[in-house]
C-alpha cells in the first residue's frame, strides 16, 4: 500500500513540479514583483487547489521515501520510526499549507 501511495504521489508530483518550475521561470522572465505575484494568487481558487494538491502529495511522498532511508541506512524499524515519520509528514503538511494560505488569503 505504501508503495502504491508513493508511486501515485510521484505521478502527481511530476506534474506539479513541472507547473511550479514553469510558473517560477515565467514570473522571473516577466519581471513580476512580489506584489504582482500576490495580486494574481490572492483569491485565486485554481492556484489554491493546485498548491493544496502539491503539498498533500509532498507530505505523502517524502515520508515514505525517508522510511526506506531509515531502514537501509539506520536499520531503524518499529513504532518510534513510524511516529517520527508521521510527525515529519505533519510538519510538511502544516508548513506547506501555511505557505499556501499565506499567498491565497
Amino acid at each position, binding site marked *: *500500500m*505504501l*508503495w*502504491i501511495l508513493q508511486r501515485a504521489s510521484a505521478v502527481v508530483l511530476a506534474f506539479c513540479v513541472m507547473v511550479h518550475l514553469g510558473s517560477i521561470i515565467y514570473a522571473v522572465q516577466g519581471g513580476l514583483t512580489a506584489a504582482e505575484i500576490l495580486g494574481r494568487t490572492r483569491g485565486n481558487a485554481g492556484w489554491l487547489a493546485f498548491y493544496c494538491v502539491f503539498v498533500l502529495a509532498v507530505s505523502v511522498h517524502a515520508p515514505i521515501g525517508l522510511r*526506506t532511508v531509515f*531502514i*537501509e*541506512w539506520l536499520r531503524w524499524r518499529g513504532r518510534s520510526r513510524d511516529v517520527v515519520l508521521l510527525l515529519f509528514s505533519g510538519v510538511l503538511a502544516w508548513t506547506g499549507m501555511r505557505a499556501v494560505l499565506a499567498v491565497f488569503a
Partner: protein
Amino acid sequence: MKVSVWKGGAEGGFHEFDVPRHPSQTVLDVVTYIQRSLDPTLAYRFACRVGMCGSCAMTVNGVPRWTCRTHVDRVARDDRLRIGPLKNLPVIRDLVTDMREFFDKWARAKGQFKGERTRNDDFHQVKPSSLERLKVEAGIECIGCGVCYSACDVVAWNPDYLGPAALNRAWTLVKDERDRARLERLRAVAGDAGCHSCHTHMSCTERCPKHISPTVSIAGLKREILKTTIQGKF
C-alpha cells in the same frame, strides 16, 4: 600469474600464490591448482564444472562470478587475480560461504511449486507459446548460484530483503499456470523484505551468468501486486 586468495573466515586475509598460466584456463582451474599443488587446506566449492550446478560462484577481482565458466583471460588485470568468497553471505572458511540464508529466503518467498494434480492425473500441458510461459522463459533458467544476491546493494543494506534470486523464483511460479498459491506468494513477496524494496540498480541483471534479468521479474511482481490490489483481492 599472481593470485591473491581469501583464507580464513570472516576474519582472515588474502594470501598470494604464483600460478602458471594456460590457454583457456578458468578461474576454477586456478583455484583447483592452488588447492592441489600449493595449499591443500584451501576450502572451496564446486561440482559440475560446466555452468549448471551453481556451486562455484566467488568474488573475482571484486565482481561476483561463476568461476567454472569465467576465463582468466577475460578477468585478469595486469596478470593478477584476487579471489574471495561471495559477498552478502557469511563466510564459513576461505572461499566457502554459508548459503542457508540465501535458500531460506527462497522458501520465505514461497518458492515451492503448489499444484493440484496428483500422480493419477494426466500431465498438464503448458503451451511454450503462451504469453505467461514466454514471460518466464529466461527466469526459469536460474541455477541458484548466488551471484545476483552477492551483487545486490539492497541485500547489503537490508538483511531481510529476499534478494533477486528468490524473487525471480516467485515470479516464475506466479506466471506458472499450474500453480495454485499465487495470492499467498504475492503476499509473501510484497513489502519491506520483498519486491517493493528493489531500487532497480540492476546489478543482479548485470552480473547474472545466465543472462536472466531478475530486475524484470521483480518489476513483474510489483505490477502483479498492483493489479491484484486494484482488483481488491490482495
